[in-house]
């Protein structure tokens, strides 16, 4: 507004505060509009932050000991201390487009599963807010079937005085999603590097070094009948190869998941077929 009015509107009644000039009023109005603009911008961006709540129905694997998704999202302070303590770097922080809360931790089991090579679930110990916890507060009851029947026994420390993992709830449950691709069901063996030479995933092998996880690519296999998911499962009694009867009456071998499964994802990471025959159903509960 460049037309300058030299005479401001006359104010016949004297007021305690002097009337604002036209220019001042205009600049005030513009400032109000700019304030509204910044308000809208920041709140708009803020509302986009709510998307993870809408997507929270989508299942994804959180670190061990995580609260239920909604409670997890409310309590996670997004510091990444769980990321820092993980010896196999299984935990990653989510980015903007992952739609699960910027900076919240998650695990992509196929790329790098949690193999409990820390022995004590270090991420739970590191969490400052109780998002990951051994002891869920009483007012947050678990969903039916999410609880474990007994504390899971970690095979790696089966001979230690305290062989269990201090976990009361499962992260998810493993399921044979593509039985037609499973080498065990086909009666095939496996020889070589599972997941190929370029795979970066790591795991601890007790016969190599208890305290130093190594690359899976550096640990080739030669098995007459594939049982990698059972062989490498870190939890006692969580999975086994059983003889099952197909609908046509023929007998065959198949990996079968049992109640102690915590959903760590080692079976999914180690499965040699592409895409994997066995997957973790994140936040799934145990159904008998």
């Amino acid at each position: 507004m460049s037309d300058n009015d030299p005479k401001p509107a006359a104010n016949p009644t004297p007021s305690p505060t002097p009337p604002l000039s036209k220019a001042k009023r205009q600049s005030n109005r513009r400032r109000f509009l700019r304030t509204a603009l910044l308000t809208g911008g920041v709140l708009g961006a803020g509302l986009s932050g709510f998307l993870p709540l809408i997507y929270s129905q989508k299942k994804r694997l959180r670190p061990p000991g995580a609260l239920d998704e909604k409670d997890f999202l409310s309590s996670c302070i997004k510091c990444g201390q769980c990321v820092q303590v993980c010896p196999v770097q299984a935990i990653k922080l989510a980015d903007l487009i992952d739609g699960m809360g910027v900076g919240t931790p998650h695990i992509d089991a196929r790329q790098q599963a949690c193999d409990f090579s820390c022995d004590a679930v270090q991420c739970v110990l590191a969490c400052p807010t109780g998002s990951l916890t051994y002891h869920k507060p009483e007012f947050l009851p678990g969903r039916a079937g999410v609880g474990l029947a007994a504390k899971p026994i970690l095979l790696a420390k089966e001979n230690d005085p305290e062989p269990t993992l201090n976990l009361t709830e499962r992260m998810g449950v493993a399921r044979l999603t593509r039985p037609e691709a499973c080498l065990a069901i086909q009666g095939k063996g496996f020889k070589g590097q599972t997941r190929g030479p370029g795979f970066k995933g790591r795991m601890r092998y007790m016969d190599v070094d208890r305290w130093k996880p190594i690359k899976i690519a550096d640990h080739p296999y030669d098995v007459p009948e594939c049982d990698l998911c059972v062989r490498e499962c870190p939890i006692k009694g969580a999975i086994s190869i059983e003889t099952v009867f197909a609908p046509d009456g023929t007998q065959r071998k198949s990996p079968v998941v049992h109640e102690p499964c915590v959903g760590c994802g080692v079976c999914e990471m180690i499965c040699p077929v592409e895409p994997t025959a066995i997957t973790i159903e994140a936040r799934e509960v145990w159904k008998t």
Partner: protein
Amino acid sequence: MSHLLKRRFFEQIKVMFGAEPSKPKEIAPAAQAMHFYKKGNRDLIAEKLHARAHAEHKNTWRNRRWITLIIANLLFTVSFFFDIQILEGALTASRFVGFHLIDLNSALQVMLAHKHIINNLIIGTGTVLVLWALLGGRTFCSWVCPYHLLAEWAEKIHLYLAKKRLVTDQTIDRRLRSVFWVIFALLAAATGYTVFEAISPTGIVSRALIYGPGLALLWVLALLFFEVFFSRRAWCRYACPIGLTYGVVGIISPVRIKYKLEGCFHEGDCRKVCLVPHVLDTVIKGRSVETEVPIGPDCTRCGLCVDTCPTGSLSFDVKGLSKIS
């Protein structure tokens, strides 16, 4: 503390929440005498011109601050990268040699959203509360917050462009920050989700420095873009609730900037470099209520005014320290 300073103390708290600083209604006789002495004093004007012409530009405090800020943030990065476990975590929550430290605003958001507080959260928040209450509250902003440093560099570009008359600083109502603080607190409590944490540039930049960059940095870039081309230091001045949280903590802090009326030329260079010039209203001619006035809680104790002041009228001060020595 005189009743005038007491009144000013409470006024400065209002100013932090967004009120405009006002002219004082009453000024102490000693200060009044100084104001009167300076009025139209030709010797003083000549002295001022001389001092400004010969003023050496110092960056003492700025350099100390930048080094501190960079070291603090680098310590996070290095701790993770080399796994030396000195400062684990990010700015939102961390462990310094095993001891919990939790950002006050993040802690508040989590407490409001989750409504359940565990011991580690209390320990970490309490430690940080005491630490920043001692060190000056918003000292966090200018001495630790990594977004502050980025914004300072963006500000330099903004000022360069403004000098070339390519951009003009568009001011925004400062009450907005208090409104945002309330809105984000209410949103956290009502929805059970710490939504501010999703857009907090402090958290985003801190995590990017430690865990690698992500797309969330685009939001930070958008903010910096807004600050360069539209409104100087907009996020820190008008929006960031973290700043207000730490500001409140700093109300009672002993560390602050102290203003001495006697030597001041009222030429206003300090207000030009200040992130929060409303706290320096006292340096305006005729406004100082006492001969010595502490600067209010919204001050980030960045020291730019101390570096800029040609007469040493602004300096760092620790309340009570002068009494001891």
